[in-house]
């Protein structure tokens, strides 16, 4: 039993990481109609910025993280301002490929700026743990879970209750009509890219202590976040978050109880079969295409 609780607690932590990344992907998808394959790459780049500020510039970790968030804001703004804004006429397939190009640029720029050696980033709270029902969870784990949940709570509050959220939701629903109604869709899209980049770096900073900061830091997170979006459906903001937690829990349980080598692959296979039967995800609705 205690192992099970331990696994679930640990999964909630990975779930938070995946859901932050997935939320970034879904915000971009809803406002710009782009599948954001570069979410992980941008998060990886900005995590390198955090690590650089922490190790080389000698800042305290919390300040370095804030620095990384600022740099994420700037990268998000830049990507939208320089590229995405000018792709209104590009076909949806080509738009997805633009983000693949973005991956290449970020993966190429990072070793140039920060060197090729793997770096290390410590946890925000290095020691201490809390016993829960025979299991234990580190304070840093609690911080990750709590922080992830509160970021999501704030985002959902903004989306559902504020004028800005309304602007984002109208843009997501129909960009052309939104523009006719006086919604500044260009600014909305730009803010969406910045928010997604910040969510990316938060996920990156949470992932980094488990491994070392390398170019592949976010590959797993990116893949799982995308699959979370598929599982939850691309039509709602909360679907992917739900999907991310399900994936986090299912993955750890499969890895522990079924097979430590094949657990993750079994999960992917299961989700593949799932989307064959429910092509629009857990919460998604079928979009009726008019001819």
């Amino acid at each position, binding site marked *: 039993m205690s192992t099970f609780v331990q696994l679930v607690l640990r999964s909630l932590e990975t779930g938070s990481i995946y859901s932050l990344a997935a939320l970034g992907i879904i915000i971009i998808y809803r406002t710009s109609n782009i599948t954001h394959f570069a979410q992980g790459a941008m998060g990886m780049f900005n995590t390198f910025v955090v690590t650089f500020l922490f190790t080389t510039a000698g800042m305290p970790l919390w300040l370095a993280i804030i620095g990384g968030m600022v740099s994420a804001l700037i990268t998000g703004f830049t990507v939208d301002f320089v590229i995405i804004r000018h792709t209104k006429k590009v076909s949806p397939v080509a738009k997805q490929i633009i983000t693949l190009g973005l991956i290449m640029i970020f993966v190429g720029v990072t070793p140039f700026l920060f060197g090729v050696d793997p770096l290390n980033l410590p946890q925000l709270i290095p020691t201490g743990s809390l016993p829960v029902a025979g299991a234990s969870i580190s304070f840093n784990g609690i911080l990750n879970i709590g922080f992830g949940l509160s970021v999501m709570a704030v985002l959902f509050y903004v989306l559902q209750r504020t004028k800005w959220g309304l602007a984002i939701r109208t843009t997501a629903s129909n960009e052309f009509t939104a523009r006719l109604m006086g919604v500044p869709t260009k600014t909305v899209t730009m803010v969406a890219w910045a928010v997604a980049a910040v969510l990316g770096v938060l996920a990156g900073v949470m992932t980094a202590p488990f491994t070392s900061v390398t170019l592949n830091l976010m590959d797993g997170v990116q893949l799982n976040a995308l699959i979370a979006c598929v599982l939850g459906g691309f039509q709602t903001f909360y679907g992917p978050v739900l999907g991310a937690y399900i994936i986090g829990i299912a993955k750890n349980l499969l890895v522990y109880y079924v097979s430590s080598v094949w657990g*993750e692959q079994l999960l992917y296979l299961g989700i593949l079969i799932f989307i064959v039967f429910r092509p629009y995800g857990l919460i998604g609705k079928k979009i009726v295409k008019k001819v």
Partner: protein
Amino acid sequence: MKLKRPSFIVKKNAHLNYVLFGVALCLVPLLIELGLLRNSYLTLVGSVIIYSVAAIGLNLLLGWSGLISLGTAGFMGLAAYISAYATVNLKLPFEIAVLLALSIPLAVGILVGLVSLKIEGLYLAIATLSVSEILRKSFEEFGDITNGFSGKTASYPKLLGFFQLDKYGTYILLVVVLVGVMILIHNMINGQMGRALNAMRGSEAAAQAMGVHLLKYRLVAFALATSLAALSGILYIHFIKYTYPPTWTLGMSLNILSAIIIGGVRNIYGTILGVFVVFAVPDLFLKQIPYFGAMPGFAYIVNGILIIVVIMYYPYGLIYLGNDMKKLWGKVKAKVKP
């Protein structure tokens, strides 16, 4: 949208053009023997040919059918490992190994094609990505067959059981396969299948209403794309003679995808040009540039920027560059004359 046709491709003699292109490629070993080209260029041009085969297959999906697949690398790797295992461990003849290495990825490809009927564009991209991830993980874990991270070696192919090819012979084989693939795809896209795929890309509902069998053509497109990826994997293992799991990651699929976009979507020569830009130009030219050349990841940055710039400003690809230059030159001339 009307597609311009590059002027140097004469429609009537398309097949002859492909054969001439192949003959031109066959001159590379000759030039190396004469000392006009460096020895390493054979491997370089050979790799361009190998990746071109996979890229032409993916172009059939991406360009003509409008379906994104991110699983190319997985299928290439699968075929490479099967072929290596069959020839080295099982001591099967080359031809049977090829058949095996083609049919297993083909079966997987058909399964994915069946799934693709259910799911739409971006779901499909992610589904193929996870198929590729599962395959890559298998390459790492099935050590008995794949030799894990130490990598698997194979030898140059032995045709019909007695005709052992050397390096140049294998190279010629690559060229022959490439020309064959070019002619095959050319015939397909200019025939009924090409028209059906074009109609499906425009509007599935309309195509279906006009009597295009969606299941059939999607399956054929997927089957062809995966078997060409598999073919490319077979050529890879028997020309490069070595493979290990990190070769077949998402990066490889992305490179092949970007080659198509950069070179020219829905264009056979364009695909090859794109593969040349993505895989050969970094080695040939970019490394010569002072300071930047030595930078890690420089080729990656250049490719990324190229993809974005080409998509934004030159959606038909670099293959039309020569054509447009000529037109521009014609305009300038016409202005100057009077």
